[in-house]
């Protein structure tokens, strides 16, 4: 069974559209995250959710909004997509406290045209 799964794997869309990426984890972790990997492979955290509360919100545009219906899911909604949003988005999960391995999903490659 896949530990962290995200859908879709690929997403091609036009500028100005609104899209969502879904993420689910079956590891029982208490915290989920969204990371963005740009064209130079640089990975940077966007959001972190713990017990349905946003605990890290990096300086990302407010067009991006994470939504967590329950502790096993963290979806990413993006409004008014721009060319610069093209990247690979990774969902991850771990426990918040202590030394715990983080598991990443396979990524969603978003291309805005």
């Amino acid at each position: 069974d896949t530990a962290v799964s995200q859908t879709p794997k690929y997403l091609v869309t036009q500028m100005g559209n609104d899209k969502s990426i879904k993420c689910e984890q079956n590891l029982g972790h208490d915290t989920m995250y969204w990371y963005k990997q740009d064209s130079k492979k640089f990975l940077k955290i966007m959001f972190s959710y713990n017990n349905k509360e946003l605990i890290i919100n990096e300086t990302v545009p407010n067009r991006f909004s994470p939504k967590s219906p329950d502790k096993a899911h963290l979806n990413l909604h993006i409004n008014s997509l721009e060319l610069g949003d093209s990247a690979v988005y990774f969902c991850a999960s771990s426990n918040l406290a202590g030394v715990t391995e983080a598991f990443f999903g396979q990524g969603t490659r978003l291309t805005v045209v």
Partner: protein
Amino acid sequence: QKEVEQDPGPLSVPEGAIVSLNCTYSNSAFQYFMWYRQYSRKGPELLMYTYSSGNKEDGRFTAQVDKSSKYISLFIRDSQPSDSATYLCAMSRWGTGANNLFFGTGTRLTVIP
């Protein structure tokens, strides 16, 4: 200046070679040092981590941390074609979970049979 610097490569070596991958960092508060492996079109997976300074060995892989020089290394002995991937270093102040990891840009390694 980025908090974590890593030579992007690419690095090509013959099978059986010893590989050395390195990162430097600027934030002296980092306490946890991780190496992730990312295969093409996949998410990063944790390879190993070290707390504070010192060495850690796991099979063919050895991680070294020199906090005085703010320099970390990953050595791969007897490299195999299956080691071909991008290797990302990551660092954190508080743990190995995915909350606020600072990643390097990754070094792409190819092991030639």
